[in-house]
């Protein structure tokens, strides 16, 4: 079978197909280098404090898989459990934080709403004063959240899959999908054709282009999401901090640089060039949270492509074309889902059945009008 996309989703799917189901006759096609998509560009935040019980269960499973991934792959993916703070600057986001905390607790996930004094203890640089333009009223604190070495995850899965016999083809672009009588029969690539009855689309920002090759339309729009790092400074920020109102999130890596992210660009595009207004807005917002960082220098900015769905939830499983499966719609939040998506997609491919854990995420839900409820917390992100 063929998996399109050498990001964490494609590679994890290949890995679990081999490991859990003994299926190794798998080709992963990657048009560039592995991790060149969102998987190599994301801010590597892991958490499971979602809003819907479906979401919480799903991401919690992923976090559990991540926690033991290094040992399993024999590759240190440097999962760093830092604690994750989502700030609330107004009472409506505080209400959503409470809502999330309670749903999390009901599912056994550690989350709690904390006040400004506790926030200040966790992040001494934070301006928790009332005179801030957007005063901090509280935060959702999620101790299990953290960051990971994203590239290491990609490489670890690729090495392990490769060791079990999976073929990872870099610099190989999928250019066509042959469908006969509603069924996949093969694919064409920039380096030749492959006969196959199963194609799994794991191409995130490019997923509609690949789906179009199979004649499948996806409710996905591609938006750039930008990120940036500063020069390194001595450690001062342990926690991952997210502010939905200010559209910014920040963490400090073990190397000492701050990694920043924000919300997607204001208009759809396939450009990863990055914009000036992004870094301007980002800096303004970071300084509202931590005013004494004015002299810190931004070192690099970049962008990745995000496959946004109408309900901020992924699309996973079978499509109307037999043998054409999708694992897309990961938007701005899919890195953390890599392991569980790989595990469930592998099961889906291997058994032909849709695992319970992803039953809410089927493509049919849009035509059926049963969207996933994560949109309720849409402002919160990543």
């Amino acid at each position: 079978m063929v998996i399109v996309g050498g990001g964490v989703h494609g590679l994890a799917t290949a890995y679990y197909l081999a490991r859990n189901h003994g299926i190794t006759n798998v080709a992963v096609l990657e048009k560039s280098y592995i991790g060149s998509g969102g998987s190599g560009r994301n801010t590597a935040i892991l958490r499971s404090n979602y809003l819907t019980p479906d979401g919480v269960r799903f991401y919690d499973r992923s976090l559990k898989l991540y926690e033991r991934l290094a040992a399993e792959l024999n590759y240190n993916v440097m999962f760093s459990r830092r604690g994750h703070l989502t700030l609330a600057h107004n009472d409506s986001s505080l209400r959503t934080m409470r809502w999330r905390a309670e749903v999390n607790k009901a599912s056994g996930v550690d989350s709690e709403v904390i006040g400004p004094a506790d926030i200040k203890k966790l992040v001494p640089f934070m301006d928790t004063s009332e005179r801030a333009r957007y005063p901090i009223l509280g935060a959702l604190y999620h101790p299990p959240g953290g960051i990971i070495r994203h590239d290491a995850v990609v490489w670890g899965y690729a090495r392990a899959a490769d060791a079990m016999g999976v073929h990872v083809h870099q610099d190989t672009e999928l250019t066509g999908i042959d469908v006969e009588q509603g069924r996949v029969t093969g694919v064409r690539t920039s380096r030749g054709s492959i006969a196959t009855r199963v194609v799994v689309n794991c191409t995130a920002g490019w997923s509609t282009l690949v789906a179009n090759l199979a004649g499948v339309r996806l409710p996905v729009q591609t938006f750039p999401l930008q990120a940036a790092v500063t020069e390194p400074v001595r450690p001062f920020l342990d926690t991952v901090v997210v502010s939905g109102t200010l559209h910014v999130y920040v963490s400090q890596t073990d190397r000492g640089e701050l990694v920043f992210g924000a919300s997607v660009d204001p208009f759809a595009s396939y450009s990863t060039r990055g914009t000036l207004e992004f870094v301007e807005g980002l800096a303004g917002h970071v300084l509202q949270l931590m005013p004494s960082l004015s002299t810190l220098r931004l070192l690099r900015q970049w962008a990745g492509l995000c496959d946004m769905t109408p309900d901020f939830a992924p699309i996973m499983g079978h499509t109307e074309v037999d043998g054409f499966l999708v694992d897309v719609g990961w938007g701005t939040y899919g890195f953390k889902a890599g392991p569980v998506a790989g595990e469930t997609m592998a099961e889906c491919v291997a058994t032909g059945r849709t695992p319970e854990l992803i039953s809410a995420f089927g493509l049919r839900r849009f035509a059926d009008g049963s969207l996933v409820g994560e949109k309720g917390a849409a402002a919160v992100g990543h």
Partner: protein
Amino acid sequence: MKRQTRRLDRQPGEVIDRGSPLEFGWNGRSYPAYAGDTIASALAACGERVFSRSFKYHRRRGLLTASYTDPGCIVQVGDEPNVRGAHRLVTPGMDVRSQDTWPSLAFDVKAANELVGRFLPAGFYYKTFIRPRPLWPTYERVLRRFSHGGVVSPDPLSPELSSYDKRQVHPDVLVAGGGPAGMTAAVAAARAGARVMLVEEEHSLGGHLRWGDKADLAALHDLRSLLAASGVEVLTNSVVFGRYDHNHVAIVQRGLPHVYERLVKARAKTLVVSPGLIERPYVFAGNDVPGVMLSTAVRRLINLYAVKPGDRAVVLTANPQGDAAVVDLERAGVEVAHVVDARGGDDLVRVLGRGGVKGVELVGGHRIECDLVVTAVGWTAPLTLLTMAGTVAAYDSRAARYFPGTATLPDDVLPAGGVVGDGTLDELVAHADAVGREAARRAGSMSRREPAAEIPALPVDAHPELFHGPTHGIVDFSEDVSSRDLLTAVEEGYSSAELAKRYTTATMGPTQGKLESVNVVAIIAEATGRTISQTGTTTWRPPYAPVTLGALAGRHREPVRYSPMHPWHERHGAAPLVAGAWIRPDHYGDPAGEVLAVRERVGIIDVTPIGKLDLRGPDVPKLLNLLYVNRWSKLEVGRVRYGVMCAEDGVVLDDGVTGRLGDQHYLMSTTSSGAASVWEWVESWLQTEHPGWQVHVTPVTTSYASINVAGPRSRELLGRVVAEIDLTPQAFPYMHVRTGRVAGVDGCVLWRIGFTGELSFELHVPASYGLHVWETLLDSGNDLGVRAFGIEAQRILRLEKGHLIVGQDTDGLTQAFSAGLDGLIRLDKDDFVGRSELVWQAEAAAESRLVGLHPNDASVVPEEGSQLIEAGVICGRVTSSRWSPTLHRSICLAQVATEFAEPGTLVTVRLPDGRSVPATVTEHLASVDPEGARLRG
């Protein structure tokens, strides 16, 4: 105090001002300097050679390039971390410290890392600390202590360090780089009539001419005079850090009197990119030992700063620049012990010495004692701005460097100078002159008939491909990545440039490839048996030079909005509530008292942020019918009606009342947060779906101060300030609108509505008189017990009344039936926005509903967001909850699964502290006056 033992006699091109001596601090000791010195030149003049410790191994580092990109002299200046010591000018009293060295620069305990250096190869961390698993967090904590860089402090910065601003400019031609090429292009463009801005990163113009010979200095003098007469706006100590789409060019300007740094954003018609070339270090053993410098570094030190860089030098040269360095060194009195001419195949093997150069070993084992090793092995073209504009870097093996592939550049970007070729100064100037004229022509500032300037091709000199010697050395100085690390990466399969970069972190440090990227690619190419072209490069990305968050942010300001009554609120101790851009009174100290005042007497609240749209035209009813779920065709003049808007997916978008003021004149109100979006919503339906409809929409939200007068005595109060309007229930019933004079102010709109559930009147007063009317109401109602109430009291009042708040009691997926709006929705209308989905929702029956909820224990107020849980499954949540001062009990609204929505159903609320409490679904959403007798009174 230290002495300037290595300061040379006056040099012809020196930039220091010997008439202005000063002192500054280095690691707590006082050092002399001259104005014009950089931190690095001043320290070097006093004989200092070590300025920092390296990233991984904490090896001592000295000057390498003596320019902004120097990785060896990154220092802490006061509260500012990571200052480029070879660029920043010293100022009197400046407090400079080396970064990240403990206990001192000379004795750094972390240098122990160097001893275990062989244990820190590429990918070290990925391969270790895996088992036993729980150890990684411990190692990580240790590792983080070894991270690099300066320190930031949580304390507020000094005022000088915290003032930034922005400026937007519109030059016809923007020139990035003020060497001979840039200066010439700028002059040529200006002479052709263009508005020109020239930006130079260094503190003065001239590029490499500044540290050149007599002829260079003479040429520079001429260029400066031409420029001075040209009307070009020149920014020095400023760097172009990005060229974004549509020629939006970002510059950070420093050294200004009023602000620390300024972000200059240029919308350039054409951009000339003339950044010159950056000299490339050579990779061989010991190439990072203090005392190993590039030829441009020694030339800069001698010619610009009159600093003698060493006493005895060995020079490796492959080009005229290296030869010129030999001449400069000799003139400065440095003994040139040996010149290794790479053009003849000679090479250096290794540097001897650890903390400083003690000698070099040549091919064949021959050793020479020296304290300075100079290399001149070639150039890197800084292509960031050009690749941002779309060019693909093309490697030319004959010249041993990359060039911009000009075919891929857009018309509005033109390269000039060293990035595109070599040649004599005259050739360079002729080329840049043509580029400047062409840039002006393309900017449209020349007459249209002017033909395109013929841009002569610059010659490209042959240069040997020299990247590394016979030994391994440091490739990325800021990241401490060696050529051996790159080989390891390739061996382990990380063999593309992009993967090897990420695996080793080469090019990921503060120099971002400006010094090391060509060497990285060359070494990978060699290791993989590919050519450099086949290997490709890593991606150049902005910013070209690091830029402070302060400069990017500018002055931190975001629009705020105040109501006309704001001064009163402030005077009366209102607790501010930030609601989007609005700053509103949350309460005046006693929300429960404010509630009771409304229930028992009369209160007034400032509701100015409520969105208001003035709608005029014959087709307004069609518009209302389309946008609201209820029916609007028969609204009579003088009446108002409540309406709810849905999106096309049936999700509740906004609500409000709309009143008919005249035959073709309506006033629509929206939620406060929906004011802007509803206006756009209305315009979009009018402009894109129904352009033929005759409606004019004018937003008048802040034209009016809006005041809600609520409570059983509100009529009485209003009666005292209204003259011509008959307020009796018969003349002015519930859900009607009147216009007239209030407190002497004409043009007021009054509507009788009741969000609070009380008899109430909403006044919309021409905003300039808002404060007057507000104060008049309070004065006139003193004896009635009138009181101002805030948002919090209003929230309680509306909750008692069971009125929903869109976005709180509904969320991003709540369709209208789930919001309990059954009575309002008119599916029998032909069409309205969202109707189709609501038809289907009605057929399927809503999955959840909004209900009233009373905890059985009246004293428990479950926090908003608390979940309803039955048999371990979540079946709803509390959307609103408060203590009701009116009923002396807790009251809630909740979204619950339809099977639990029947009045009287007992549900379980899980409180945040883990307790479960029973609660009962109430008959109505309203807990107070469900029949509405009070508000109709």
